[in-house]
Structure formats: structure tokens, C-alpha cells
């Protein structure tokens, strides 16, 4: 089943074109990695999907809900707020800088979105949160505040927080870029486990080996366009596009 469909997506920041016509689709259970040089538009693409940026052209469809379309006069039409909220909850996002709420304990941070947004009871939400914390190996940390946690622990809490809302797709925006190599491994392990459980994911990353190991498909972006897309083994060992080739040689 197709979960996300993006067609001819365009995004500009002032005069600067950041996304110049991106089209791809994502299927249920698929892990898609997006790689490419800094400034190629990877993060912006994720931010357009998660409605943190408004697009300037093209269309996005999530689980058959039209999120945004563009008519023949190039006018962009976003869906009504209710549909947008429904779509928002289908996509979880894990940030590079975690973005936990510093004034909330780990448990409350995971409980509050469930009770406020999904209207779960506090008991229900707490149960979900504890289950996820256990899965993340953070059971003893439920009363801790983010300032007392390592970067890796904070990122695991933020993954638990996103998962608590049962998203259809979990998006990762360079989830390990703020972490040292040891903590990076810690997070990659968690994402790998989710991949084994057939969680549908989009991972923007600079960890090439990781992208090759866990992805079903890889997109290489350059200068606001998809330069190459395909099977990870194929793309990493035998890239077709010279730009991909040049980029990947730096990682060997």
C-alpha cells in the first residue's frame, strides 16, 4: 500500500530554490533513506512532509488524504485544518536536536501528547509510555528531566514520544548528527530494531553504512533534485550518476 506520494514538489526560500521538483512514493513497511550533501534539500523535504514548511508547488498525498495540491495556475492549495491535523499525526518526526520539553519529566513528555492530542486517558497513556520506555531501555529514567540525560538517551526519549502517537510513518531528520560515535551506534540500533518490526520510515542521514544496511531503497539528492534512486546495494556499489559516485567516494 502506498503511504506517501510526492509529485513535483517545489520549495523556495526567497529567490533560492531548495527543492526543484521532487517526486517519489513510499510504501507500507518500507525503509527509505535519503542521503546527499549538505544543502541538497534533504531536511527541507522532510520538513515539507511534516508541515513545518509550506511548499511552493507540487503535491503531497498521505494515506490517500490529499495534503496539498497545486492547480494549473500554480496556486498551492492546502487541505482543511482537520485533514492536515489527521495527516500530521500519521507522520512522526525525530529531530536532529531532540527537542524534548525541558520542563517535563521523561514520562510526562511522552504522556502529554497522547492525552492532549489523542484524548487517551492518563492511565492508558502512561501504560503506552512505560512500554515504549522499556523498549528504549529507559525504564529507570521516567522521572528524569532531559537536562540529566545523555544525548543518546534524549534521542531515545524523543523516538518514544513520536512512537506513542502510533504514527504510520516515522521520519528521522539526521537523528545522530548531534551525537558522538558511541551514542550514534545506540540510536542506529534502535532504528534498526524498528526496521525489523516493519515500521515504515524515512531516514535522512549521513551514516552511509547504516543507510546501506537498513534501507529498502535509497534516494540520493543533489541541488534540490533526486539525482539517483534505487536499491541500496546497487546504489552504493555501482552508482550510475557521476555526482553520486563523487559523493560516495568521500565516505570510503
Amino acid at each position, binding site marked *: 500500500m502506498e503511504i506517501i506520494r510526492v509529485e513535483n514538489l517545489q520549495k523556495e526560500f526567497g529567490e533560492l530554490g531548495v527543492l526543484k521538483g521532487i517526486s517519489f512514493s513510499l510504501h507500507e513497511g518500507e525503509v527509505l533513506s535519503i542521503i546527499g550533501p549538505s544543502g541538497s534539500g534533504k531536511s527541507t523535504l522532510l520538513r515539507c512532509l*511534516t*508541515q*513545518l514548511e509550506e511548499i511552493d508547488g507540487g503535491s503531497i498525498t498521505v494515506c490517500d488524504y490529499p495534503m496539498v495540491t497545486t492547480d494549473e495556475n500554480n496556486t498551492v492549495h492546502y487541505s482543511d485544518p482537520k485533514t492536515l*491535523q489527521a495527516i*500530521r*499525526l500519521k*507522520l*512522526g*518526526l525525530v*529531530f536532529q*536536536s531532540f*527537542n*524534548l*520539553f*525541558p*520542563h517535563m519529566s521523561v514520562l510526562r513528555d511522552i504522556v*502529554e*501528547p497522547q492525552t*492532549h*492530542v489523542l484524548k487517551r486517558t492518563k492511565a492508558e497513556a502512561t501504560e503506552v509510555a512505560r512500554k515504549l520506555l522499556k523498549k528504549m531501555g529507559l525504564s529507570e529514567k521516567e522521572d528524569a*528531566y*532531559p*537536562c540529566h540525560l545523555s544525548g543518546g538517551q534524549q534521542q531515545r526519549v*524523543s523516538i518514544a*514520544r*513520536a512512537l506513542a*502517537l502510533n504514527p504510520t510513518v516515522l521520519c528521522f531528520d539526521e537523528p545522530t548528527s548531534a551525537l558522538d560515535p558511541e551514542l550514534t551506534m545506540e540510536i542506529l540500533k534502535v532504528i534498526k530494531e524498528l526496521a525489523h518490526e516493519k515500521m515504515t520510515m524515512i531516514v535522512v542521514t549521513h551514516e552511509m553504512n547504516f543507510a546501506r544496511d537498513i534501507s529498502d531503497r535509497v534516494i540520493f539528492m543533489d541541488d534540490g533534485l533526486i539525482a539517483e534512486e534505487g536499491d541500496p546495494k546497487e546504489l552504493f556499489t555501482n552508482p550510475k550518476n557521476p555526482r553520486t559516485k563523487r559523493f560516495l567516494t568521500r565516505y570510503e
Partner: protein
Amino acid sequence: MLAGTFTSLKIFFLTLIFSLPLGLLVAKGRMSKNKLISTTVNIYIMIMRGTPLILQLIFVYFAPYYLFGASYDRFTAVIVGFVINYAAYFAEIYRGGIQSIEVGQYEASHVLGFSKVHTFTHIVFPQVLKRIIPALGNEVITLIKDTALAQTIGVAELFRVAQNAAARQFSTMPIFIAGIFYFVMNAIVSRSFDHIEKRLDYYH
């Protein structure tokens, strides 16, 4: 002198009760994307911070009389004058606090599906409060001492009462005693703020 102290305290508390929420509203107006609103609010803040409070009190009390021939209660005028002045200062403190919150906090709230109101009341404002407590403390301490200005339009607060007593008794003693009153009130205020700061110290 007790009656004077009571009047001073009444000015103090009424000013806080009205100007703290009003300041938040003013801050929101100052940060508004609507140019007309933000410019208007900015001019208001400039006038409030750019002219002496004593002058503002006189204006608030006498302007309605000269404009409409209507006069009103002196004490009410004092409260109005203090509230609109302090709201401007509080607004700038709130604004500094609100603008210091990382954009990531808003983005996380947005992605989690929180409404704008919930994001402000539950995510942003609690963090703002912690950051602005020291600056608020400063302003509140100043307010205690500023209540002495109420006598400008004839409200007998603590300092006026003390001055009158000093004149009657040919002694500066009552004024010193008034000083002790102000000092004690402010000691309580600073203690309270220290306490709030400690209460909010469970994270950083």
C-alpha cells in the same frame, strides 16, 4: 501610618493583578505580524518607558477633566496610571523571554499535533516564566518604591502620610520609619522571588 501602608499595599497588589496579564497581551501585540498593531503597541511602550511615571499619573488624572470635563476618583487614576506604565515594562520582559525560546520547541509541538494555544500555555510559557523571574523581581521591587508617587495626585499613601507626620512632629523620624516599612516589604518580595526561583530550579 498603618492606613498609609495599607494604601501603598493596595496600589502594589492591584497594579500587579492587572498589569501582569495586560503585559502579556501587550507583548503579544508588540510581536504581532500585523504592522498596524505592532507599531501602535510599540509607540505605546515608547511613551510609557520614555516619560516619567509622575508625569503619566498627572496626565491620567487630569486629561479626562480637560478633555471631557469629567473627573474621577483619584485612587482609580493612580491604579490606571500604574497599570498602563508597568504593563509596558512587563511586556518587554515577556517579549524577551518568549523570543528566547528555541524554535525547536514550537516545531516539536507542531509535529506532535498540539494546538497553538496549548503550545503557548503548556510548552512555551512555563519555560518563559523560569527565564524572566529575575527580571520580574527587579520590576516588582521598583513598584513597591514607586507607590510613593501616588501622592502626586493626592492619594495619601505611606510616604505622604510619613511626610505629614514629620511636618506635624517637627521630626524626620516618621520618614525613617517609612523607609523601614519599604525595606521590609521589599525583603519579603525578594525572598518570595528567591523561593520561586528555587522552585523552578528542577531543570535547566
